[in-house]
Every structure is written in structure tokens, then in C-alpha cells.
């Protein structure tokens, strides 16, 4: 604690210094109660190190603890294919695959993904070598403005895997049977990806084509 210095702190915005586990806070404004505490100035914004694998490449990042998986991909790894739409898990634009499962990367802290394998739209295919789902979206006009498309494609890839893995859905009639691909299944399973241009029917067609090549 050689670099420690005295800070005047209010109780307004409380944070906790990791090394010393003392309660401190920052900021100006009305001072309700003043406490004089010792804190390492480097701890004012708590940060931590995360190791994960993104699109097949090991990554180590030191991040503000608040950083979402989405922001770590976009702002720290410059993988801007994954989009920030609502930032509240309501639109699906930020959908990525984590250990093979689709999630909303906006509702996950980067720190929750120690050791995880993350695949973004950049990891599915490249302009020279499109993933079959990307090619099918192009062929069937599965987008208009394109903003929701990376999330739609990641989700669509995962949906086909989920059906194959036997995960049922709200519209599966008999829960004890292996679910089968259908337009209704696609519509239900893709409901977490909103497209304000309304490309839904073309997205469903793109998914049907990729599915027909799988089976």
C-alpha cells in the first residue's frame, strides 16, 4: 500500500476496495456523512482479469467489473458484428453463442465467462467463406437494415442445434417426443430476436433451407 493516499469520501456512491475490504465512496455533491479512509487509488474503479476464448482465440482482458460480455466484445476486442440494441435483453441483437448456447450478451458480465468458449457472428463465417446460415440469409433476403441480423443468425444457428438436441418449445405438442423443425417451431423459438424491418418470414425460409440441408 505504498501508493495509498488519504481521500475524503462521502457515502453517496459506495464502492468497496478489493485489497482492503473497506467501504469507501466517491464523488462530490451533498456530503451526508464524511468518512476519512485509506484506499489504494488504483482500486477506485474495481477491475478484474478475465480469460476466455473468442472465435477460437484465447483472450485475456482486464476490465472494469461492470463490463458486459457485449461491451467486452465490441469495445475491447473490436468485434463490432455483435450489436447493442436495447441493452436490456429485450431485442436479441446482442445474441452470441457461449459454450454452444445462445445468450443475450448484454445481460451477462464479461467476468461471468472465465474459461468459456464464445462465438460471435465473426466466428461463424467470413465474407469469403460464409456460414450456411449467413448464405441462406443473403439468398432469402432475411434482413433489410441488417442491424438485428448478426443476432438473428447466431440465434438461428442455435435454434437448429436446439431442435436437434431434443429441447422442446412452447409449441411442441407432445413434450415426450423429439421436436421437429416446422415454421411454427421457428416462429416460437426465434421470438427473442426482434426485427423492426419485419424480415421474419424470410428468416424462417432461410432457416428452413439450412435445416433441409442438415437432414
Amino acid at each position, binding site marked *: 500500500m505504498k501508493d495509498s493516499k488519504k481521500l475524503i469520501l462521502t457515502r453517496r456512491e459506495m*464502492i468497496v476496495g478489493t485489497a482492503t475490504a473497506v467501504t469507501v465512496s466517491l464523488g462530490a455533491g451533498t456530503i451526508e456523512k464524511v468518512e476519512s479512509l485509506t484506499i489504494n487509488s488504483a482500486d477506485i474503479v*474495481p477491475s478484474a482479469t478475465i480469460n476466455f476464448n473468442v472465435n477460437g482465440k484465447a483472450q485475456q482482458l482486464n476490465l*472494469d467489473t461492470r463490463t458486459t460480455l457485449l461491451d467486452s466484445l465490441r469495445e475491447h476486442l473490436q468485434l463490432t458484428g455483435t450489436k447493442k440494441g436495447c441493452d436490456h435483453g429485450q431485442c436479441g441483437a446482442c445474441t452470441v453463442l457461449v459454450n454452444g*448456447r445462445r445468450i443475450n450478451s448484454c*445481460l451477462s458480465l464479461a*467476468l*461471468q465467462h472465465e474459461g468459456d468458449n464464445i462465438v460471435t457472428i465473426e466466428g461463424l463465417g467470413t465474407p469469403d467463406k460464409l456460414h450456411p446460415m449467413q448464405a441462406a440469409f443473403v439468398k432469402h433476403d432475411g434482413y433489410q437494415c441488417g442491424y438485428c441480423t448478426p443476432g438473428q443468425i447466431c*440465434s438461428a444457428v442455435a435454434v437448429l442445434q436446439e431442435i436437434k438436441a431434443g*429441447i422442446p418449445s412452447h409449441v411442441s405438442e407432445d413434450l415426450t417426443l423429439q421436436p421437429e423443425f416446422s415454421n411454427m417451431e421457428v416462429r416460437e423459438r426465434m421470438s427473442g430476436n426482434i426485427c423492426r424491418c419485419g424480415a421474419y418470414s424470410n428468416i424462417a425460409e432461410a432457416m428452413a433451407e439450412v435445416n433441409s440441408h442438415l437432414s
Partner: protein
Amino acid sequence: MKSFTYERVHTPAEAAAAAARMPGSKFLAGGTNLLDLMKLQIETPVHLIDIGKLELNKIEHTLTGGLRIGALLSNTDLAADLSVRRDYQILARALLAGASGQLRNKATTAGNLLQRTRCPYFYDTNQPCNKRVPGSGCAAITGFSRQLAVIGSSNACIATHPSDMAVAMMALDAVIETINPKGKVRLIPIADFYRLPGKTPHIETVLEKNELITSVVLPPPSGGMHFYHKVRDRSSYAFALVSVGAILHKDGSGQIAVGGVAAKPWRNKSIEKVVPLGAKAFTEKLFAKARPTQENAFKIQLVERALEGILKEGRS
């Protein structure tokens, strides 16, 4: 989002002890609800204890023939489990009626039970809300209350519990298993788990400070026909206006819990003997003490109709 420090823990006991050590901390599991609320500064923990990688993500058969569901099992994995799909269909149906594929992949069993209300006034930090800021008042009672509670509410709060899964758990008589910072294990029947708002709507469950849910235990399968009928403004990815979870038995009896009407899944076992008399008789008894607003009184009729549909299907 407010700053916070972060730690990962490796056992449930360690998690509870860490919470006791750090005032103002919260457990972080899936995070799909907590992080959303932290972005809006409705939740402002100073320290997060990440329990996400604890070994609490399994389903085991209990000695008595029931199921022990790990607190961290994802909603997807719980709904896809073959035992659940065969013997506890009401639970699989409820889970699959909730949220989106992405959210179900991340959301956990315990997190689902503990999710906060979707009352718009709870989310709007410009409005008074006794649940968000105790003592500040309730903007919902005189506001847009179409989505909100019709029974069990108080003058302090008319919020509803948003979970579908919890409705099924209530019909199934699930038991919630917890551990406290001293390592003591406790079993809480779900009927006793949620608190009604009264004058303290910010206290939503009987969980003590720093107590951690480790699993949810289901009794042996009760047989019967299982239904979960959810009524909502769009047919997918929306919270319920009302939902009815029902297990109907051959002798005409039933286990029935209702969602979207109160601060907890609503069930009254003592009136389930009138199920054979039909949806109208049952609903009238279930909502005898209801105090709906003008905007949400329709929910009672909606429950009756949803139940009527279920009973018809059960008879056919």
C-alpha cells in the same frame, strides 16, 4: 451501473459466508434480471458474489422418488430434462412459456424464483415505488394497473410476481432448500416462501439475509393431466396477464395455481375440492377476497375462462 467489486466462490457455504462478510453484496447467478436492474440503478449492490460456476446445476432423483433440482440449473435444461417432460409436464410447460430461448439458456432455477416484479412503476425510477424505495409511495395504484395484482395486494403495493416457473412449482408443492452463512440448511415449502406486500413490499420472500438457495425439491410425481395455460398480449416472449397451472386427477380433484394475479403464485388448497363444480365456482371462491382495480378486474374472468378451457380439455 454503480461500481462494485466482484468475487467467485466455489461452494454454497463459501457463498453464504462471503455475503455475510460483505454488507451490501448480492449473489450473481444467471444475472438476466439482476444486471438489467443494476443498469437502471434499481439494484445497487457494492459487491457481487458470482455463484454461477458452483456445482448446483444437476437434477437428481431423491430417495422418495421425487426430483432435486440444482439452484443453478438453467431454465432450458430443466425444461428439457426427460423426467420433467414425462412426470412434471406442468413445470416444463411453464418454463417454455416464459422468456426467450436466449434468456432460458442463462436464467437459473433459483434466479427464476427470485426475479423481481415487472410493474412499470418499479422500473421507472422517476416514480414513487414502495418496493424500490420503501416509504416513497405507490404510483401504480392510481396509475396504469392493467397488468397488476387483483388479490393479496395492499395499499402499499399492487405488483405481481412475473414468474411462470414458480406457478408450476406452487401447484407441485415444491420445497426450497437453502444454506445460511453458518452452514445451516433449511427447507421451505414454496407455499410459505413468498410474502405478500403488506406494508413492506420490498421484502418479497422469507429468505433471511445472506441465505442462499441451493436446490428446489419436487415431491414424487402425482400423475394426473398437466396443463399450463398462459394468456398474454402476444403469443410469445411476453409476461402473463394471467396464467393457470393445473394438475387434474381422475377422481375430479385438482392442484391449481394461478400466475399474474398477485405478488406470488396464487393457490388455495382448501378450495380445490370444488374443482369438480367447474371453473366458475372455483374462480369465485379463489378470488372471493380480490380487490381489483377498474383496469384489471378483467383478469378474474380471464382466469375463469382459462381454467374452463383446461377443465374441458381434461374431460375430453
